[in-house]
């Protein structure tokens, strides 16, 4: 078990594409850490650089107080689950799980024993002599996990471990993975492009964009207080309302309406400056009648989210979304009013949280 | 040798780079009383090509020779290196071996290769290589001048002749009878051949006359086709160092082809087939060919009732033979009435041999009377180079006696020079053209043009 530390990590591909731009990151021992971002943001490159599959152009990778920047992947004492699991198609499940031990020259009997033990723990005991081709996606994923567990490495690296599963299985696997990580207590870094997955599983997470880390924090921090408009727009199953506005005395003018300054921004704004006002649809109180500090407009779209509805209001040609609980949803064309929660609304200046 | 030198440096580097793979070097040595190893090669192999020849060397020559040497107090072992491929491939292999300073101590070559091998320095005059013993060999007196000539180049003897052969016209007596032709047929002119052909044709013989033509049969077209005809018309392919171009004899020879294949007396398609000659043998054996121009090999190796490739159980009764007539009596080469062509193998000592004297002993041993008699017994009779031997062994062989006594005195040999094979191909092409419908004069003119390219300009062609 070990902490992972990145110092000024830079990766430039031949041809000049900067995949990682001087990243610093500390992941303490035992943490379940998520790397989140849209495709092409550098999160997989970062993971592979930690694994040693990519060479760092600059900076250092330190695992368990040991600088491994120049160390071959096999010498870093990490284990990795690949997006396609990379189970060797010509080996059965036992051999696949035991493969890392074979490399470590563990005797045949001992490694079979270990493989069976780990396999049993993951509920694979009846599948041990099958080939990967004969397994379902979920089973393959568990074999890949078992193989990683068998290594007893200091850190686990998961590259999109759930993306090859179908939606229902993914939820199950999510819970399973989190539980497993808790039990094993091994430092784990996983890459995902699904913010819900990151929020659900990670102890902490980093949101990346274009080779930079845009925010590091717990899921709650990242969800409630996105550090910038990029993170704000990326996190959340319904994207945050990000509305252009301006400071008008002690209120804000947003989409032609007057709203109160959020608590977090109180005393930090100057009159007349342009800002972006951010509030999640979940943090809006919808009502049919007008009130002080609401955003008022006509209902344009109503989308069913199951237990609630997402209502899109046309507020002076600006679209504003609010989540409305079951049973009180309006009809398209109604007048509607949405009151942001002052304690949850945020103000961004030049894209950064005020 | 510029080519060779260039290579050596690179080769040395490669060898030094670790590719020098273990393989035993050639045995060396040769001091007094030391064991001597000799090798002898022929394009013959047990269980295949010339099996009898291979058996003779392996089972008779080698033990006898080794024993004879032992009696003289010498420890000599001989190894036979068999081969069973096309002559061209055998020749290629020999050339490469000789060029690289390798090869068997005693080797057989075709008589026609003597010139080119000598020019390339692959073989050396025997007197240079062996010393005076070569010229004083007692066998020379038994070999006719003409046969000795095969082994000579620029007036020097490079080898010993192993044997010779001759070409005749074979005919099927059964078919002849059907066509009302005599069983002791002997044409005296080309016209008589054509007349016989016409009669055979009207008697329903599918292929009245088969005289090899075209390139597919290769050298067989030259030896059993255009060259005897050329000789019959009074020409030679090379005379006094000058090549024969589009001369009248050539036009006449090609004219005969035109009469045969243009007049429906032969099968033009057969001449083009890759295996046409084999087929002509088979057809003759099947009684479909009336007259066939072939060498004595045909009698010995093809229609031989015992082990021929196209056996004819009744060969001795059915197959007749006659000398090849000149175009008209007296019109043949050297004013002869009858003509033929001969070839034959040579046996010589490899200049690279470490024991040339012993090799020469082995060579002469294989051509001693007792060896030749042993070799030719049990139905393997052929015309040997020695008249003393021939007298004995040919007694019961009417055809070979016929060849030895009637044909060899009038025969001719091919010029033993390096470009001959290309000239030969050009001749074959000329016959192919005529069989294909080109006029003989035109084909002869085309031949001359090609010849100029081959032999280095019109200056080397007799006008």
């Amino acid at each position, binding site marked *: 078990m070990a902490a992972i530390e990145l110092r000024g990590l830079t990766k430039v591909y031949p041809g000049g594409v900067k995949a990682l731009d001087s990243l610093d990151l500390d992941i303490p021992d035992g943490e379940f850490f998520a790397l989140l971002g849209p495709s092409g943001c550098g999160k997989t490159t970062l993971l592979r650089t930690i694994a040693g599959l990519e060479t760092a152009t600059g900076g250092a990778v330190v695992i368990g107080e040991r600088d491994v920047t120049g*160390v071959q992947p096999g010498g870093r004492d990490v284990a990795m689950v690949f997006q396609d699991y990379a189970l060797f198609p010509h080996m059965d499940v036992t051999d696949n799980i035991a493969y890392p031990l074979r490399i470590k020259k563990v005797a045949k009997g001992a490694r079979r024993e270990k493989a069976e033990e780990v396999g049993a723990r993951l509920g694979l005991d009846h599948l041990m002599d099958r080939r990967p081709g004969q397994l379902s996606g979920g089973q393959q994923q568990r074999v890949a996990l078992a193989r990683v567990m068998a290594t007893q490495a200091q850190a686990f690296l998961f590259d999109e471990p759930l993306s090859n599963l179908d939606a229902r299985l993914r939820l199950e696997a999510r819970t399973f993975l989190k539980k497993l990580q808790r039990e094993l207590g091994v430092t784990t870094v996983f890459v995902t492009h699904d913010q819900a997955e990151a929020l659900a599983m990670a102890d902490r997470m980093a949101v990346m964009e274009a080779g930079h880390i845009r925010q590091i924090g717990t899921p709650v921090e990242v969800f409630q207080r996105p550090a910038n408009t990029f993170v704000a727009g990326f996190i959340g199953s319904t994207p945050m309302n990000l509305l252009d506005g301006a400071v008008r005395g002690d209120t804000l003018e947003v989409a032609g309406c007057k709203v109160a300054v959020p608590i977090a921004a109180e005393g930090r704004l100057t009159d007349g400056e342009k800002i972006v006002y951010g509030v999640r649809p979940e943090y809006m109180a919808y009502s049919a009648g007008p009130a002080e500090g609401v955003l008022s407009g006509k209902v344009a779209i109503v989308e069913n989210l199951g237990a609630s509805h997402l209502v899109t209001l046309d507020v002076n040609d600006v679209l504003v979304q609010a989540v409305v609980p079951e049973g009180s949803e309006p009809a398209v064309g109604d007048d509607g009013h949405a009151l942001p929660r002052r304690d949850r609304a945020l103000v961004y200046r030049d894209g950064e949280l005020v | 040798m510029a080519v060779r030198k260039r290579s050596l440096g690179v080769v040395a580097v490669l060898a030094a780079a670790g590719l020098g793979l273990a393989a035993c070097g050639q045995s060396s040595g040769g001091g007094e009383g030391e064991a001597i190893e000799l090798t002898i090669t022929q394009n013959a192999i047990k269980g295949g090509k010339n099996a009898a020849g291979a058996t003779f060397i392996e089972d008779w020559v080698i033990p006898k020779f080794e024993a004879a040497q032992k009696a003289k107090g010498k420890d000599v072992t001989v190894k036979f290196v068999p081969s069973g491929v096309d002559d061209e491939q055998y020749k290629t292999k020999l050339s490469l071996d000789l060029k690289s300073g390798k090869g068997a101590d005693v080797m057989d070559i075709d008589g026609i290769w003597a010139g080119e091998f000598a020019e*390339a320095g692959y073989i050396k005059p025997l007197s240079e290589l062996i010393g005076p013993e070569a010229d004083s060999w007692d066998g020379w007196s038994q070999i006719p001048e003409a046969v000795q000539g095969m082994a000579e180049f620029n007036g020097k003897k490079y080898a010993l002749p192993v044997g010779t052969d001759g070409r005749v016209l074979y005919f099927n007596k059964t078919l002849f009878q059907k066509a009302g032709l005599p069983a002791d047929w002997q044409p005296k002119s080309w016209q008589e051949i054509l007349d016989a052909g016409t009669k055979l044709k009207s008697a329903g013989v599918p292929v009245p006359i088969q005289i090899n033509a075209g390139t597919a049969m290769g050298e067989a077209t030259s030896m059993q086709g255009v060259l005897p005809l050329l000789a019959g018309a009074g020409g030679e392919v090379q005379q006094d160092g000058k090549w024969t171009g589009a001369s009248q004899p050539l036009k006449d020879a090609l004219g005969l082809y035109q009469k045969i294949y243009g007049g429906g007396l032969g099968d033009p398609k057969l001449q083009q087939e890759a295996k046409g000659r084999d087929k002509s043998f088979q057809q003759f054996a099947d009684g479909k060919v009336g007259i066939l121009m072939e060498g004595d090999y045909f009698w010995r190796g093809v229609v031989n009732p015992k082990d021929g490739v196209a056996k004819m159980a009744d060969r001795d009764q059915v197959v007749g033979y006659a000398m090849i007539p000149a175009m008209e009596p007296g019109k043949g080469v050297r004013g002869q009435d009858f003509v033929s062509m001969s070839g034959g193998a040579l046996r010589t000592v490899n200049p690279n041999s470490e024991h040339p004297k012993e090799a020469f002993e082995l060579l002469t041993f294989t051509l001693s009377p007792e060896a030749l008699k042993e070799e030719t017994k049990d139905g393997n009779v052929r015309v040997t180079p020695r008249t003393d031997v021939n007298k004995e062994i040919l007694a019961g062989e009417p055809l070979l006696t016929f060849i030895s006594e009637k044909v060899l005195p009038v025969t001719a040999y091919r010029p033993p020079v390096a470009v001959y094979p290309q000239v030969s191909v050009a001749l074959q092409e000329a016959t192919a053209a005529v069989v294909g419908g080109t006029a003989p004069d035109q084909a002869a003119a085309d031949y001359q043009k090609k010849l100029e390219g081959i032999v280095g300009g019109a200056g080397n062609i007799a006008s």
Partner: protein
Amino acid sequence: MAQATSPPEVVKEDARTRRGYSSDAAGLGSLRAGAFVAPALLLIAAFLVFPALWVLYLGLTNYRLTGAAAAEPEFVGLANLLDAVFNPTFWNSTWLTVQFVLGSAVIGQVVLGFTIAWLLRDRAGPLKRLVEGLVILAWILPSAVVSFLWVALLDRDGGTLNALLGIPGFPWLLDHPMLSIIVFNTWRGTAFSMMLYGAALGNVPPSHLESARLAGASGWQQLRDVVFPHIRGHILTNLLLISLWTFNDFSPFLLTAGGPDGRSEVLAVHVYKVALQSGELGYGAAVSTIILLINLVVAVFYLRLLRSKK
């Protein structure tokens, strides 16, 4: 935001590990990759490149297997090349080779190979194994044997083909020598294309075919719009290899010996006749050089095609 930790004790790695470090999938690195390639390259250098360059050099001499020119070959420069260029036999051979390659490789093997692969693409069981087995059999049997089989098949009198067609005496090898060797080589070489296309078709995603079928595409349209774009690379690689092989294929000699009268004397046979039968190695080497140049043009042509619409 980032947690502050005390700076770790950084173990300074030496420069060598960093240089030897590699980022390819298997961690080979240039050095080890070089070691992997070296044995093959060494053999190729010794037994391929070096003799091939030697051949190119021989082409500039009047070297012969026997005769005076064997003992003292002279440098003649481009004389051999010029001889070839002004030699109608050479041009005849070149033209026949073009027919041979187009007919037997580009059309015969590719079309037949693809057809078989397409027909059998989603089949399994004995029929597929039988057809594939027979096609592969024709490919792996020794050429000395198969050429003899075809001589027997096409024989004028006793040949099976004439017996089947009821035209005894029809001389296939004489009247249609090129057709004969083209069909023969198609028969012999189809296996390679069949296997390659079989594999390529396996890689065409079924969903693409299905969506084309849903859109109402006919069989031909499916091939044109879905299959061919997908296996383009395979087709061109295959074409390149079989064109080169066919170009240098010597087996027609075993069937027709180049005849009748040179009507099936493709370049490889021409070189054999010139070099081995006439012993004109200098000229033969020069013709080999020309063959190399033609092959180069063919290869560049395919590579252009391969890159053009990628």
